[in-house]
């Protein structure tokens, strides 16, 4: 097994991590359809949902659609979980993210269930979300997600989901 050198040039580290993130998020059409972007600081990810008219659920308020909010939370949870799975392999040198591409995608976790709490009306502006993997076992994972708009401490939605780890087909 090859190990990366102790101190790597920052560009190499960034290239590797950004390539892994692209492999997870870029190949999924629905993430592109919603326009979700991922902001990375070290291993911390923030999903960004730039406002778009097609995300509106109530044109009279106007407000974000509950379904768009739910999808945003679920996408964030899946990306965070995939990222957590890939991180260790990547940083230890066991996986070269450059080997991941449209033909070689990382296997994605499958959602078992997902619950969304709608705490406030989603306003017609950008939304942000961060997920935390509370439990990650061999077969199942539990992930919590928080979403906010203008104030980090004023969540407009939160969600909890359970996921089947990739590589297993029994639902």
């Amino acid at each position: 097994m090859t190990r990366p050198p102790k101190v790597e040039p920052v560009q190499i580290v960034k290239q590797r991590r950004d390539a892994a993130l692209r492999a997870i998020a870029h190949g999924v059409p629905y993430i592109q359809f919603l326009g979700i972007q991922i902001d990375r600081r070290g291993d911390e990810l923030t999903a960004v949902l730039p406002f778009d008219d097609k995300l509106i659920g109530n044109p009279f308020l106007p407000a974000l659609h509950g379904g768009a909010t739910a999808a945003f939370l679920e996408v964030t949870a899946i990306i965070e979980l995939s990222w957590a799975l890939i991180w260790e392999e990547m940083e230890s040198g066991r996986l070269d993210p450059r080997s991941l591409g449209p033909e070689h995608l990382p296997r994605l976790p499958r959602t078992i269930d997902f619950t969304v709490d709608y705490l406030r009306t989603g306003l017609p502006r950008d939304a942000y979300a961060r997920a935390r993997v509370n439990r990650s076992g061999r077969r199942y994972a539990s992930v919590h997600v928080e979403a906010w708009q203008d104030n980090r401490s004023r969540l407009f939605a939160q969600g909890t989901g359970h996921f089947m780890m990739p590589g297993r087909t029994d639902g």
Partner: protein
Amino acid sequence: MNDSKRTAAEQFVSAIPHSKALGMVLEDIADGVAVISMPYDERFIGDPQTRVIHGGAVSALLDTCSGAAVMSHPTGPIGTATIDLRIDYLRPARPGDRITARAECYHVTRAVAFIRATAHDMDMTIPVATASGAFTIERGPDASKGGRG
């Protein structure tokens, strides 16, 4: 259900930009039960390897259908918003299949509606997903002391 209620419910779906963007079509609606379908579209794929629709798109369908069911309730709500929605993904939807959701508003209080819903693809034996949730109900001025949940 009278014609004006039906028209209001139909508008509820066609006036929602996100539902329109997902190609949703109102199939049936009456007395607290709504049926809405969504076409298979490659833009909605959640797993490029299996080409299965993303759970988020199914969530949006179930949420819209549940809201429509609330709006069509005989007590005549004038507005609704999701309080919470839980979705169980029973199995992956078949790539290429249209998905049809059916939501039932099985109980209402003055300010809260309770719903359950299912989503099917063309294989009618087991649903793709089931949902249950609570929605706010806004009452018109004529409904005595109606208020938000």
